[in-house]
């Protein structure tokens, strides 16, 4: 029966080629535009580590003096001072924790054929790799002892390994960063974490570092921040030590907390820490407090998906609605025009359900074809985005969910639009049309 309906649908569509084409174009363009903006939105709002959503937390402290506000909705700065990071590292509560900083070096390769280049790097504690499940091809992170002592060791990414040595196991070799030799103790497999949840300060995409060194090297190598430094009061900074002692906010701090109990314990710990610091004369404000946010909260808080993207998604769904209204009225007109023919079919014994099903199948075919064409349009739209706006290279993509969403949305939308016309036509009274024949 279903095959027969498909045949009938195909004939019906062929009989009114212009209207069929108009409907096909309307649904295809609607789906194309909607899928383009929805794909960008979907890729932007993706949580890269959903399985650790309730374990990995960003730590924030309201460290400014009374009267100094931050621009965030909850008046908390994104980053921490060096002294707070060093103090928090001593907390026994978190299962894992890492202070970190985006920095960088001039790299002078041993191979004279490769000219020196700049490489951004992440100074982090050893827990970083386990927290973010960074895969190692060779070697391992540095020991916990290095987190306290500071030792010139480095973990390099697969790409950098390829660039410097042409790949392979190069554990034990040296890499010269700003004229200082670092021993390579680990080489990563190809790895990508986007959006880059551990540091969203300078863009969320395409920024994963290829070079990792111990955070404990900060005072030894006087590592500069290649990310944001946020100050809220004037402080003389003549030496590096001045910066370490300052109230400048320039470090990211993340903790891994195993369960709800640990989260509560850590919140209590932060409250206690603030009290302790207040006695030392810092955090001079009534509402000094700390907060932790999980991955989803952090992505939302940092507004990775811009308002513009949300508006575009909203507008494109409204656009799709207009396309559907369009299709609905065309279908209605078309089906009703066919009423005499349906009258004959009904008189010959076709049930209402059969007539209804027959028309829905026709609409469904239209929906699937429109969805397929819509996918092509969406791919074209995303291609134009990628080529015109380098920023969107990583997010102007379709993943499997979006590939499936396009025909699904198209089919459902068309069936929804087709219901009323099909219902209307199946209620045709046979007698009325038999008379005039």
């Amino acid at each position: 029966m279903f095959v027969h309906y498909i045949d009938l649908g195909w004939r019906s569509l062929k009989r009114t080629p212009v209207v069929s084409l108009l409907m096909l174009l309307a649904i295809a363009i609607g789906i194309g535009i909607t899928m383009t903006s929805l794909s960008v939105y979907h890729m932007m709002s993706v949580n890269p580590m959903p399985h650790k959503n309730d374990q990995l937390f960003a730590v924030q402290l309201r460290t400014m003096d009374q009267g100094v506000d931050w621009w965030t909705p909850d008046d908390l700065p994104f980053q921490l001072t060096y002294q707070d990071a060093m103090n928090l590292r001593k907390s026994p509560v978190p299962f894992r924790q890492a202070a970190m900083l985006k920095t960088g070096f001039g790299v002078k390769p041993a191979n004279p054929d490769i000219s020196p280049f700049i490489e951004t790097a992440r100074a982090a504690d050893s827990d970083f790799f386990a927290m973010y499940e960074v895969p190692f091809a060779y070697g391992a992170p540095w020991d916990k002892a290095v987190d306290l002592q500071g030792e010139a060791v480095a973990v390099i990414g697969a790409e950098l390994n390829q660039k410097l040595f042409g790949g392979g196991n190069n554990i034990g070799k040296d890499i010269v960063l700003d004229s200082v030799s670092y021993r390579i103790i680990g080489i990563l497999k190809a790895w990508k974490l986007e959006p880059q949840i551990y540091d969203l300060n300078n863009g969320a995409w395409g920024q994963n570092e290829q070079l990792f060194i111990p955070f404990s090297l900060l005072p030894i190598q006087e590592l500069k921040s290649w990310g944001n430094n946020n100050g809220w009061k004037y402080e003389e900074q003549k030496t590096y030590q001045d910066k370490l002692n300052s109230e400048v906010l320039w470090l990211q701090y993340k903790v891994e907390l195993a369960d709800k109990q640990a989260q509560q314990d850590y919140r209590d710990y932060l409250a206690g820490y603030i009290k302790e610091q207040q006695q030392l004369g810092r955090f001079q404000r009534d509402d000094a407090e700390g907060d932790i946010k999980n991955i989803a909260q952090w992505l939302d808080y940092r507004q990775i998906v811009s308002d513009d993207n949300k508006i575009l998604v909203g507008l494109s769904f409204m656009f799709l609605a207009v396309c559907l209204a369009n299709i609905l009225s065309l279908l209605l007109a078309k089906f009703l025009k066919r009423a005499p023919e349906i009258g004959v079919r009904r008189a010959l014994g076709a049930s209402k359900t059969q007539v209804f099903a027959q028309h829905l199948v026709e609409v469904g075919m239209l929906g699937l074809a429109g969805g397929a064409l819509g996918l092509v349009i969406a791919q074209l739209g995303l291609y134009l985005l990628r080529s015109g706006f380098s920023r969107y290279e990583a997010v102007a993509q379709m993943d499997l969910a979006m590939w499936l969403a396009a025909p699904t949305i198209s089919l459902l939308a068309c069936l929804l639009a087709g219901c009323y016309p099909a219902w209307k036509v199946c209620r045709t009274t046979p007698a009325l049309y038999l008379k005039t024949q």
Partner: protein
Amino acid sequence: MSELKPIFNALWRSKTGALLLVVQIAVTLAIVSNAAFIIHDRVTFLNQDTGLKDENLFRFNLYTFGKNVDIGQQQEVDETLLRAIPGVADAVVINQVPLSGSGDSTSFHLKPTPEQSRGARASFFMADEHLLNTLDVKLEDGRNFTAADVVYSEGFEKSASVVLVTRSHLLDLFPEGDGLGKTIYLGDNPFQVIGIIAPMKGPWLDDEQADNVALIPQVMAAPFKRVLVRTEPGRRDEVMQQVEKLLLASESERVVSRITGVDKLVLEQTSQDRLMKNMLLVLITVLLLVTALGICGLALFNVGRRTRQIGTRRALGAKKSDIVRYFLLENTLVSLFGIVLGVGLALAMSDVLMRHYSLPSLDNWFILYSLAGIYLMGLVAVYWPAQRATQISPSIATRSV
């Protein structure tokens, strides 16, 4: 106007189709007026005057990793080399690049810390006496700084004592307009305001204080520096190609990176706004097209359905123009309902956008323009089917009855 009643009755008999068209027109009006307003907002932002001829400027980063390099001295050598390249108008080693989307800003105050006093934030550019000429910004009042004003340092251990500012920044500090010659403070370091420069933008275009700019005659010797070069018009590309080789030949223990035209940096910085503008333009164009096709398609069907009726009217003496008028009037009636509903929808939508997405409130003129546009478009869309209706022969009325 006597036709209105039969038209209304005819519409009422096929009210579903008419209602759908009303909804289509209403939603289209809501989307188009709001989108057109956002587009206008972005175009104004994108076309603003930055005060800089960015097509003649380019920048690059200079990162010295050699520990034995005398960075301060090398910077002087670099500047001399760059300024000697044919086609270069001027060049400076600088702390940040205008219009680049990243940089530093700080608050200047009327009194030194820790005294409380009026303050105003400005982005600050630090370079030697070639700075103003490199930017190609005019001096409006006072004097430019000279070689004697420039302070060379490692970090913040020394400080310059004079500053050039934009009028917007000076007015924030001295609303009376008498700031020239006065002293302002960065922390407890005093700076005398010796000149006012023509309006120019700092590093961020979307900054609330984008027009507040301060130029400080100080050069810090740091491993990581930026360099800003202005070339003669049309010669930027040839100069950009020479830079890296020239500088590395002078000192190889360093990396030259991100050699980029400043106009390109502006494009990068405004990509979100350009994207929004383009997407919305495509959206409303296609939307208008779809709505027009919808109107046209439905009218065509109606022509087909009413063949006999139209034939009869013609046979009874209606002129071709009467038939066309019927369709135009019918469309006007539907559009009218759609527009009334659409204006309400547009206002509601603007309210939602304003409340949740910090957009400015919709200018009512945009509703009016969109309304007129959509109505005209509807008339055009219905004209062709109406013309086809006039081709119906009056004899049809006599044939099949």
